[in-house]
C-alpha cells in the first residue's frame, strides 16, 4: 500500500522507500546501538594506544590479586581415594533428605514407590557396606 508520506520518506531515506524496506528503521537502530557501544571503547583504545604508554611489570602481570605471591602450581591432582568421602556423604546426608518425605507420606504410598525407595536405600547401604569393609569407618 502506498502511503501519502511515501514520497517524502523516499526523499529523506537516500532513495530507499520505507514501505519497500520495512526493517530499515530496525537496521538503523541496530547500527546506532552498536556505534554507541563500540564508539567509547574505540576512543578508550585509541587514547591508551597513542597517549598512555603501557608499563607491564612482574607484579602487574601476576595472576594473583590479593597482594601475596602465588606459590606452586594451580594444576594439582586430587587423590582418587576421596570417592569414599563422596559415598559416605551420599549415605548419611543425601539419603536423609529423601527418607524424611518418604517417612511422612509412608501410609499413603503405593507399593511401587515403596519398592523404589527400598532399592534406593539398598544401593546406598551397599556403599556403606563397601566403606565398612574397606575399614574406612575405623578411627585411626
Amino acid at each position: 500500500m502506498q502511503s501519502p508520506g511515501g514520497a517524502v520518506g523516499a526523499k529523506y531515506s537516500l532513495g530507499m522507500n520505507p514501505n519497500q524496506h520495512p526493517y530499515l528503521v530496525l537496521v538503523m537502530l541496530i547500527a546506532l546501538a552498536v556505534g554507541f557501544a563500540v564508539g567509547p571503547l574505540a576512543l578508550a583504545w585509541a587514547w591508551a594506544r597513542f597517549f598512555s604508554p603501557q608499563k607491564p611489570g612482574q607484579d602487574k602481570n601476576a595472576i594473583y590479586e590479593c597482594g601475596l605471591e602465588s606459590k606452586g602450581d594451580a594444576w594439582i591432582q586430587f587423590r582418587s581415594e576421596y570417592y569414599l568421602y563422596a559415598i559416605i556423604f551420599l549415605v548419611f546426608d543425601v539419603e536423609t533428605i529423601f527418607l524424611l518425605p518418604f517417612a511422612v507420606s509412608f501410609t499413603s504410598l503405593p507399593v511401587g514407590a515403596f519398592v523404589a525407595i527400598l532399592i534406593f536405600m539398598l544401593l546406598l547401604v551397599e556403599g556403606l557396606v563397601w566403606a565398612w569393609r574397606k575399614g574406612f569407618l575405623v578411627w585411626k
Partner: protein
Amino acid sequence: MIEEGLKSELQKQGVYVTTLEDLYNWGRANSVWPLTFGLACCAIEMIAASMSRFDLARFGAEVFRPSPRQADLMIVAGTVTKKMAPLVVRLFNQMPEPKYVIAMGACAISGGPFKQGYNVLKGIDRYLPVDVSIPGCPPRPEALIHAIMTLQEKILAQKLTGPDRPRHLNADVPGEYPVPAYGEHDLEPPMNPEVWHPPAIKR
C-alpha cells in the same frame, strides 16, 4: 590553548569551550574508583563514607572495586604492619595507571598511636607516593570526602603534556614500585628513597 579572558567572554555569550585536557581530567576526576581495601578501624569510617548517610557516590567514588586491576585509588585505611607492607605495595603495583593514594588516619601517615610498635610501619609514604593525607584517629567520613575532593582538585590541575606531566603519561618512569622484603629486623629496604622525602627538622 585558549585564554581565560576569551573563555569567560565566550561563556557570557553562551558559548562553552574546553580543552581536551580539561575534558579528560574532568572525566577521570569524577570517576575515581577506590580499591576495596581496609586494614584497621579507619576502614569502618571508609565503609560509612560509602554508605547512604554520607554517600560518597555524589563524588563518583562509590564504586569500590574488589580487584586492583579495576581501581584508580588506594585508600590506605588503617595501621600498616610490616608484615602487610609488601602486600600493600604489591597491590598498588597491580593497579593500572593513573593511580592515586590516600593515607587515611594517623596510622597510615606515621604509625599513629602504634608508632613505637616493633611491627608497625611508620607511614605508608615510605613506600608509596601519597597524594592526600587525612589526619585523625580515625578521621570522620566527612574528612574522607574532603580528601576525595582534594584529590579531585589535584587531578583537575594536572597537565597532560610537558616535563611535569603525571607518571602514567611518561613512558620513562616505571609503573611499579619496589616491593620491600621481610628482613631479619626490619623491612629491606626500610624505605624507598625515591618516594620518601621526610621534612628536615630545623632547630
